[in-house]
């Protein structure tokens, strides 16, 4: 789909297709990109590696014309260019697949693609979609509605949409964060085919193993600067991580679990989805013992949101016995009453759910805590609240100006440490954590995982729901998989493999009726 490099006036294949020089972008309070240089060669898969907040996404948005840099130049095949908006970027041959998809659920695949692709005759579009998707092994039915598709299939729509525009540089932003291990392998095959045809691929990730198996070159970013360039195939994960975080990767200490009595029991829980694109939970049963960590793996959108709301009490369940907390039937109890029984909960969304963005950390410490030292006779003890916040900040190494700092002024990782600290500070008997390290940098992630393990060792029942399979394998004692609103029986992590979990993540999803979609997505 690409003209051979020699057929037009473009320079020889060894010359960079895309050259960035001195790209600088400043946001209020943060230098997101600081004089970044980056070369992308034809036919290469080039990793841009960095922690969250290192400036990867900003840099990609500069290339795609979404963000205007404050300084720096962009050259395209030797010629200095100015990319004013994504339409211009696409015209040049730059395509981007975003981490968060931009598809309309109620439209079909072809309709969604037609919205973005203007230069194909609408009547011919379904045929073109089928042609491109078959060529790259991305099975897609143009007539299918997007809301019936899994996340992996939706990503294919995004990729095919890009490929129809015949890109010469394809940017993939954290593409595997929503995929099963098997789907990741298929994606990699597609990307290798593309690269072999001459397309350059910019692959944004913080997953070191993927980058080592896929990419030819890697540029490492840290705090907005380029800190290294390497051939990831010749590096170890440890050495890449060192470049990425500027230090050694801490490893959590892990002892054999000494499980006690059941603390959280879920018995045949059914929850009907309350929005048309939600997931209905069917007969979920689960048993978390004191002193163990149980993990729930699964691709997002398979019922995690609904299960968490039912467990936390944000949504109450008519049948009280469906959820038992430390022996008490808790289905009908609200979040406050469940907290009183010893439940603590770290939600997936930090700003706006786990914390009030505009409020100070002190006020946010008060959000879920009603102990005597904070509230007496209905009145707030300002002194006690500040002291509590200061203690969380000190214990968990939260980087903040103090208890008066607004929650929204903290980075994602620091705010997450604060929320985890606050919830652990309630001395819970059961702790539920959703995506505890999502979007959190490596250092803080390790700290949070360690905190969860310490909690387990102190006899707390811990339930972790995460999409990061590696994380679950690392910290959990038992692991279950949620797929299409059903939960598999938990297995000891020593008796299972990532492959088996991956099969469960995908395999429980039946092929959609009349469509010939493959089972593995």
């Amino acid at each position, binding site marked *: 789909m690409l003209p051979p490099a020699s057929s037009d006036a473009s320079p020889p294949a060894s010359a960079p297709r895309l050259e960035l020089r001195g790209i600088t972008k400043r946001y209020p309070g943060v230098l997101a990109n600081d004089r970044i240089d980056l070369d992308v060669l034809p036919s290469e898969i080039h990793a841009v590696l960095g922690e969250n907040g290192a400036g990867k996404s900003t840099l990609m948005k500069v290339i795609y014309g979404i963000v*205007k840099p404050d*300084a720096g130049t962009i050259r395209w095949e030797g010629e200095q260019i100015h990319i004013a908006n994504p339409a211009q970027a696409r015209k040049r041959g730059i395509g981007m697949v975003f981490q968060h998809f931009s598809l309309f659920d109620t439209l079909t695949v072809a309709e969604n693609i037609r919205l973005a692709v203007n230069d194909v005759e609408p009547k011919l579009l379904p045929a073109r979609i089928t042609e491109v998707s078959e060529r790259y092994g991305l099975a897609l039915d143009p007539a299918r509605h997007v809301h019936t598709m899994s996340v992996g299939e939706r990503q294919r729509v995004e990729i095919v949409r890009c490929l129809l525009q015949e890109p010469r540089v394809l940017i993939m932003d954290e593409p595997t964060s929503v995929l099963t291990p098997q789907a990741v392998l298929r994606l990699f095959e597609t990307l290798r085919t593309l690269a072999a045809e001459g397309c350059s691929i910019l692959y944004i990730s913080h997953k070191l193993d993927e980058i080592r198996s896929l990419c030819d070159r890697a540029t490492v970013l840290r705090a907005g600067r380029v800190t290294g360039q390497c051939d990831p195939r010749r590096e170890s994960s440890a050495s890449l991580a060192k470049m990425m975080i500027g230090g050694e990767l801490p490893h959590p200490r892990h002892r054999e679990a000494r499980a006690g009595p059941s603390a959280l029991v879920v018995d045949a829980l059914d929850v009907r989805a309350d929005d048309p694109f939600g997931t209905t939970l069917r007969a979920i049963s689960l048993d978390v013992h004191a002193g163990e960590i149980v993990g729930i793996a699964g691709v997002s959108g398979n019922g995690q949101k609904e299960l968490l709301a039912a467990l936390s*009490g944000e949504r109450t369940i008519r049948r009280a016995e469906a959820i038992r907390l430390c022996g008490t039937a808790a289905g009908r109890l609200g979040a*406050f009453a469940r907290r009183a029984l010893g439940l603590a909960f770290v939600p997936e969304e930090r700003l706006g759910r786990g914390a*009030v963005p505009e409020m100070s950390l002190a006020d946010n410490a008060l*959000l879920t805590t009603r102990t005597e030292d904070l509230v007496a006779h*209905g009145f707030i003890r300002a002194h006690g609240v500040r002291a509590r916040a200061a203690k969380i900040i000190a214990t968990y190494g939260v980087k903040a100006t103090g208890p008066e700092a*607004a929650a929204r002024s903290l980075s994602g990782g620091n705010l997450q440490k604060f929320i985890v600290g606050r919830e652990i500070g309630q001395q819970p008997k059961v702790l539920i954590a959703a995506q505890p390290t999502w979007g959190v940098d490596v250092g803080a992630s390790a700290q949070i995982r360690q905190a969860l393990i310490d909690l387990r060792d102190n006899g707390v029942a811990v339930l972790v729901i995460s999409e990061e399979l590696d994380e679950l394998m690392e910290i959990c004692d038992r692991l279950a998989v949620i797929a299409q609103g059903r939960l598999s029986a938990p297995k000891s992590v020593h008796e299972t493999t990532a492959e088996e979990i991956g099969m469960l993540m995908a395999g429980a999803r039946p092929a959609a009726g009349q469509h010939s979609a493959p089972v593995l997505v």
Partner: protein
Amino acid sequence: MRLLFEARPQPSQLAVWLGPVCATLATLVIGFIVFEAFGKNPITAFNAFFVQPVSTRYGVAELLLKATPLMMIATGLAIGYRANVWNIGAEGQLTLGALAGGGLALFVGDADWPAAILLPAMFITGAVAGMAWAGIPAWLRTRFNANEILTSLMLVYVATLLLSWLVHGPWRDPEGYNFPQSKLFTDNALLPNLVPDTRLNVGFLLALVIVALAWLFVRRHIVGFEMRVAGLAPAAANYAGISARRNIWLGMLAGGACAGLAGVGEAAGPIGQLLPSMSPGYGFAAIIVAFVGRLHPLGIALASMLMSLLYLGGESAQMNLALPSAVTGLFQGSLLFLLLAADVFVNYRLRILRATPAAA
């Protein structure tokens, strides 16, 4: 070149409080232009509008008198507004409060209750009636998820018509020459004066007590905190287990109670009887007062003085300058509008972007 609004990471406390001051100054500038356009000497006009009304002891007393209902209502409304409960119907709740409290005065007026019993009874009746009227939108919202902005506003007109029917019909003063008004309240149903030879009465002290209680509730009480959380981040409130239903009820009832008290204060204060209209739009002006005062009880106390001055100035401008009464509304409107504009600058920074080197 491009203009860009950039969110500030954390707006400065100083700017938050300077916003209303800047909006007030800008309102004055607009007033200057308006006076100029009417062919009035702006200095004379400003003098007539803002200085003359408060240049006498009586004038100051009038300022506080008119600030009283604004302060009470805005304080009550702000409790709901902080929790995203939008009670727009304080005017109706004020009317119901005046109707109920005044009705009590009319029915037991001849029974010679001592004022120390009758007046508190009137205030309690008025507050309960205001709460009942505000309770209707609260119930509709919690039961049917009906938008309380619409329902509370619509009930204003129902309340006004109800009072109008009473003073035109059953409650009309038989010796009132057929004017649509009730009998005058007896002395034991009138609020005692605070300053001799003025109309300022003890209702003002009640307003100050309400402000103090509201401050205590919002800043120190856990329920006030929970309502703030609900207003700022509904998902966080849900996560923490804060009941949205309770917040709606509390927010609506607080506004209704305060508006009801204000209604009694008007009926038993400067008016002294029931008329078809018990307020020159205090219930609506209080919405502006609540926002100019940053939904903060102390800010509201100050903002109510400012709004009161606009009322007095409007009257004075009509009398001394022959300006239309719409000037008052114009000032109120520009104040709210400019305050909202100032808020944009408090929360965002305006950046002027020139072409970057990369754009060469």
